């Protein structure tokens, strides 16, 4: 190709030889990896995810097998974390519970992101009347107290696996929709978007090359902070009897079951609550780290 370089390309090439080209995400990844608490959080989640995937391999007993000769045992060599009221091995239930709690965390956020993205993008790009409509919709959803909505939805459709994801997703989207709309609206005012438009870029191109990538950072942070909320919500629902039904060993269910034996075997509540607390803390650490990494101006 004997084509001459355009001035912009030439400039870029010239710069490339002297300074290392740094992308936003590359930069962010480096800042993130220097953040000790964030890396600790990431390590915890990776270990948990590995445990969840390998649950059938590292379980010591069948998580729903009831050993009636070993009810409410304290931690021992045979039962690492003891057994519950029905003689089920607490370690195996905790490991299988990691599968459920982590999927609750991620899948609910996927639901919330899908709805929030659709509403937020429509509002940000659709012009005034659509924006108004979408934001009023968001206002209504926002005014609905989360926990009331969750309880109602689960009473109507039954507390099954899919409904838990959908219900928690349905109460989590308004924050994301508002965030995405705000980002899109403010980004559209930026000079580089104006420049792109002046050079004749199509709306679709502007959306995918300028608006979406720049929205991704704040949205990622919001989604990561949404995960501990979802895990907490499932546990809270289990506690009032609307979570996943037995014998599914979700962490919320373990806490609830343990609570009924809080006086005789407090270790049951202790281990399962610690699992929830540590997971939530790890996700919060990652969220903090991501926010700092993606927004160098913030602290």
């Amino acid at each position, binding site marked *: 190709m004997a084509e001459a370089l355009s001035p912009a390309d030439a400039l870029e090439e010239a710069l490339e030889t002297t300074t290392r080209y740094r992308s936003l995400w590359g930069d962010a990844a480096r800042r993130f990896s220097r953040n000790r608490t964030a890396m600790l959080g990431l390590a915890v989640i990776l270990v948990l995810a590995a445990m969840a995937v390998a649950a059938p391999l590292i379980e010591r007993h069948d998580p729903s097998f009831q050993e009636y000769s070993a009810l409410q045992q304290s931690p021992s060599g045979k039962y690492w974390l003891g057994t519950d009221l029905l003689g089920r091995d607490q370690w195996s239930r905790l490991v299988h519970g990691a599968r459920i709690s982590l999927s609750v965390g991620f899948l609910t956020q996927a639901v919330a992101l899908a709805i929030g993205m659709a509403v937020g993008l429509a509002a940000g790009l659709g012009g005034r009347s659509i924006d108004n409509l979408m934001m009023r919709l968001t206002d209504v959803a926002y005014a609905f107290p989360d*926990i*009331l909505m969750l309880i109602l939805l689960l009473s*109507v459709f039954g507390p099954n696996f899919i409904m838990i994801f959908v219900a928690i997703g349905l109460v989590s989207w308004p924050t994301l929709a508002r965030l995405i709309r705000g980002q899109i609206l403010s980004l559209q005012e930026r000079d580089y978007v104006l420049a792109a438009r002046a050079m004749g870029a199509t709306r679709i191109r502007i959306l995918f090359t300028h608006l979406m990538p720049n929205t991704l950072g704040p949205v990622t942070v919001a989604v990561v902070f949404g995960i501990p909320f979802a895990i907490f919500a499932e546990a809270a629902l289990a*506690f009032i009897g609307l979570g996943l039904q037995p014998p599914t060993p979700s962490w919320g269910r373990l*806490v609830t079951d343990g609570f009924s034996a809080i006086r005789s075997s407090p270790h049951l509540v202790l281990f399962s609550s610690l699992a929830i607390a540590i997971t939530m803390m790890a996700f919060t650490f990652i969220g903090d780290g991501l926010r700092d990494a993606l927004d160098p101006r913030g602290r």
Partner: protein
Amino acid sequence: MLAYTLRRLLWLIPVLLFVAAITFTLMHLVPGGPWDRAKRLPPAAQANVEEKYGLDKPVWRQFVNYVFNAVQGDLGVSYRSINRPVKDIIWDGFKVTATLGVLALIVSVVLGMSLGLLAALRQNTVLDYASVTFATIGASVPSFVLGMLLLIVFSAYLHWLPSSGWGTWKQAIMPVTALSVLPTAYIARVTRASMLEVLQQDYIRTARAKGLRESVIVLRHLVRNGLIPVLTVIGPIAAFLVTGSFIIEYLFAIPGIGRYFVSSISARDYGMIMGTTLFYATVVVLANLIVDILYAVVDPRIRYN
């Protein structure tokens, strides 16, 4: 400003109408009715009660009637607590829930702001690190997990505090603590970050340069400017504390509004479900409005039009 407030208040009407419509629909989708019991009522008796409460009419008619009555301040009666007005039940429950929420709010605002301010003024000292550590851990421990740990230690083992109930100060200690740790940690974090940013501003340096006393600098310049972002988070926290203590009420057997709501759904107590949801939606919308107005009061740079 007044026009803005009025417009926001007017906006409350359609929001509540929508919330009412959605709740009404969902509620009638829950299978079963208020009089489905193990021991069935005789058909004639069932027809009579349904006529008495207007449940024999078509659903849309029931909704229109409900809205008409609600506008006039009549939220209907509870089907379970024989003919007690929903308004009274909500009010009784809310008094307990709100007392708990306000106590937790006071604790978290006072403690959180002091911790954050102290940490910022003594940046990179032991005090700062301790406060940051507390804020990090406190921000990720769910309230009911903390509540349970408190129950295990102070109730099951030490027998210092009663495990349930409401009315004495001893009964309030654990629920208030469980509820306020997370907001305290959050407020401390935001306060610290905001104060540190203000401390770097030129006007603080100017104030120092002209020899103002440290107390004047802190109170007049630092705190006043540094509080704006803190106010932003206190609004949602207040709404969260006043509405969000269902699980704590459940854990400590506190006769607040949360208990009524959970049990009213399983009993298909339609009036109670509608009343509670609308009441909370109003609280949430009003709390958000108050926060938005407070911004403008605290920060004259913010204008609404």
